[in-house]
C-alpha cells in the first residue's frame, strides 16, 4: 500500500469542503440576480443538485467518470466501481498516489455537483421543478460523467491526446455553458422578457455574497486540483486570485466606459469570468499570464454578453457568455501560456515553443462544445416527453417560488 500523506489528504479534504460551499454560493449568486418571486426556486436548484448528485456520484457517477476504461475506447468508465465497490481508503496511483482513493472521489464529487447547477442560471424563472430534476440526473450521467472520463479518467481519449485541463475548463465550464445556451434556446424566452417587464436583479448584496463564496471556494477548486499540499497548489492559488481580480477590474472598466457607471454586478460577473478562465490554466501558467488571461476573458465575455443580448436566446443569467465562452478562452490560453517551468509534468504552450498544444486544446474545446450541446438537446427533448419543461404562463407570472414550492422568500409582515 502506498504511503498516505497527512498534509496532502488534509488539503484535498479541505478543498472538497471548499468546493462544496461553491454550490450554495452559486445559489446565492443566481438567487440575487433573479426577481424576488423566483429567488427560492433558484436557490433550490443549486441546493437540490448538491443532494441529488452526491448520491448519484456514489451509486454510479464516479464509476462512469473515473472507473476502469470501458473496452479501452477512452469514452467512459465501466460499472465495476458502482456503489464505490473497490473505491477504498488506499490510494489509487492512477489518480492521486498520496491520498485515500475516497478522498479523491469526494473531491471530484463536488465538481460533478456544481456543473449541472451552473446550467440552472440559463433556465431560471421558467423551468418546471420536476423537469429540472430529471434533466439534472440525466445530464450528470450522460454528459458530465463521460466528459470527465475523456479528460481526467484513466485512459480517457482527450487525456491521452495531451489536452490540458487543470481544474475543469472543458469538463465543467464549457460543458455547462454550452448546455445552458442550448437549454435556454429549447425552453424559449421568459414571457416577461417578451412583455417588457423589468427583469433587474432583486438583491445585489446577495449577488456579491454569492460571488465571494464562489471565489473563496474556487481556491479549493483550482489549488485543490494539485491533489497535494505543495508548490503546484500554491501556484494555482496565486493564479486563481490574480486572474479573478484582474478580470473584475477589467469588466468594471469596460462596463463603466460602456454604461457610464462602475457596476457592482459587473464587477462580480468579471470576477467569475476570471475564475472560469483561469480554471484550466491554473496549474500550468505563471502569475503574469494569469493577469493577461484575466484581462482577455473580460474583454471576450463582455462582448459575448452583448452578442447574447442581440440573440433571441434568453440565457437568463448569462451562463453561456461567462462559463461557455470564459471556459473556451481559458482552455485556449492554456495552449498559449502553459509552461513546464510551473508544471514539469505537463507540456509547454505555443509561447513556450510548442504550437501543437494549442491545436490539442482546440480539439478538446471543439469536442466539449459539440458533445455537450448535442447531448443536452437530446436530453431536453426526452425529458419533455415525460414532463413539460416549462411551467404554464400563469405559473410563470405568479413566480416559481409559489407555483413550484408554495413558499415565499420574504414575508410581507
Amino acid at each position, binding site marked *: 500500500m502506498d504511503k498516505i500523506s497527512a498534509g496532502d489528504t488534509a488539503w484535498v479534504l479541505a478543498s472538497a469542503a471548499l468546493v462544496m460551499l461553491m454550490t450554495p454560493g452559486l445559489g446565492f449568486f443566481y438567487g440575487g440576480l433573479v426577481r424576488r*418571486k423566483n429567488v427560492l426556486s433558484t436557490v433550490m436548484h443549486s441546493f437540490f443538485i448538491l443532494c441529488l448528485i452526491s*448520491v*448519484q456520484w*456514489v*451509486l454510479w457517477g464516479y464509476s462512469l467518470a473515473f472507473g476502469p476504461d470501458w473496452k479501452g475506447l477512452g469514452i467512459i468508465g465501466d460499472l465495476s466501481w*458502482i*456503489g464505490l*465497490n473497490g473505491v477504498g481508503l488506499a490510494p489509487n496511483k492512477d489518480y492521486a498516489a498520496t491520498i485515500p482513493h475516497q478522498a479523491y472521489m469526494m473531491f471530484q464529487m463536488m465538481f460533478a455537483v456544481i456543473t449541472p447547477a451552473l446550467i440552472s442560471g440559463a433556465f431560471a424563472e421558467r423551468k418546471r*421543478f*420536476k423537469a429540472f*430534476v*430529471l434533466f439534472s*440526473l440525466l445530464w450528470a450521467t450522460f454528459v458530465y460523467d463521460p466528459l470527465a472520463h475523456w479528460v481526467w479518467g484513466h485512459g480517457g481519449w482527450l487525456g491521452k491526446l495531451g489536452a490540458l485541463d487543470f481544474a475543469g475548463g472543458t469538463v465543467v465550464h464549457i460543458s455547462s455553458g454550452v448546455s445552458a445556451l442550448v437549454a435556454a434556446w429549447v425552453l424559449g424566452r421568459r414571457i416577461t422578457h417578451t412583455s417588457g417587464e423589468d427583469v433587474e436583479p432583486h438583491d445585489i448584496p446577495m449577488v456579491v455574497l454569492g460571488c465571494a463564496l464562489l471565489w473563496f471556494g474556487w481556491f479549493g477548486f483550482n489549488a485543490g486540483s494539485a491533489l497535494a499540499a505543495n508548490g503546484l497548489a500554491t501556484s494555482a492559488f496565486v493564479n486563481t486570485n490574480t486572474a479573478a481580480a484582474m478580470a473584475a477590474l477589467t469588466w468594471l472598466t469596460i462596463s463603466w466606459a460602456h454604461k457610464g457607471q462602475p457596476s457592482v454586478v459587473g464587477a462580480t460577473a468579471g470576477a467569475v469570468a476570471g475564475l472560469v478562465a483561469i480554471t484550466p490554466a491554473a496549474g500550468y501558467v505563471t502569475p503574469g499570464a494569469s493577469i493577461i488571461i484575466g484581462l482577455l476573458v473580460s474583454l471576450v465575455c463582455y462582448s459575448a454578453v452583448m452578442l447574447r443580448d442581440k440573440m433571441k436566446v434568453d440565457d437568463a443569467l448569462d451562463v453561456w457568455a461567462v462559463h461557455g465562452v470564459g471556459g473556451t478562452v481559458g482552455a485556449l490560453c492554456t495552449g498559449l501560456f502553459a509552461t513546464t517551468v510551473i508544471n514539469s509534468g505537463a507540456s509547454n504552450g505555443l509561447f513556450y515553443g510548442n504550437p501543437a498544444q494549442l491545436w490539442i486544446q482546440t480539439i478538446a474545446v471543439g469536442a466539449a462544445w459539440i458533445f455537450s450541446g448535442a447531448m443536452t438537446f437530446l436530453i431536453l427533448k426526452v425529458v419533455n416527453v*415525460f*414532463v413539460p419543461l416549462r411551467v404554464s404562463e*400563469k*405559473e410563470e*407570472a*405568479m*413566480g416559481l417560488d*409559489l*407555483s*413550484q*414550492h*408554495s413558499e*415565499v422568500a420574504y*414575508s*410581507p*409582515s
Partner: protein
Amino acid sequence: MEIVVSMIAFFALVASWFVLPSAPRAVATALTPSEPLSAAA
C-alpha cells in the same frame, strides 16, 4: 447487498417525485402577481 438496496431506495425516491403533487394548489393558484401575498392567509 447494500448497493442493491441503496439503488432501489434512490430510484424509489426519484420516482416518487413524479407522482407526488407539485404544490398545495389551493395556495398556489389563489394568488396572482397583482395580489398581495397576505391573500394566501
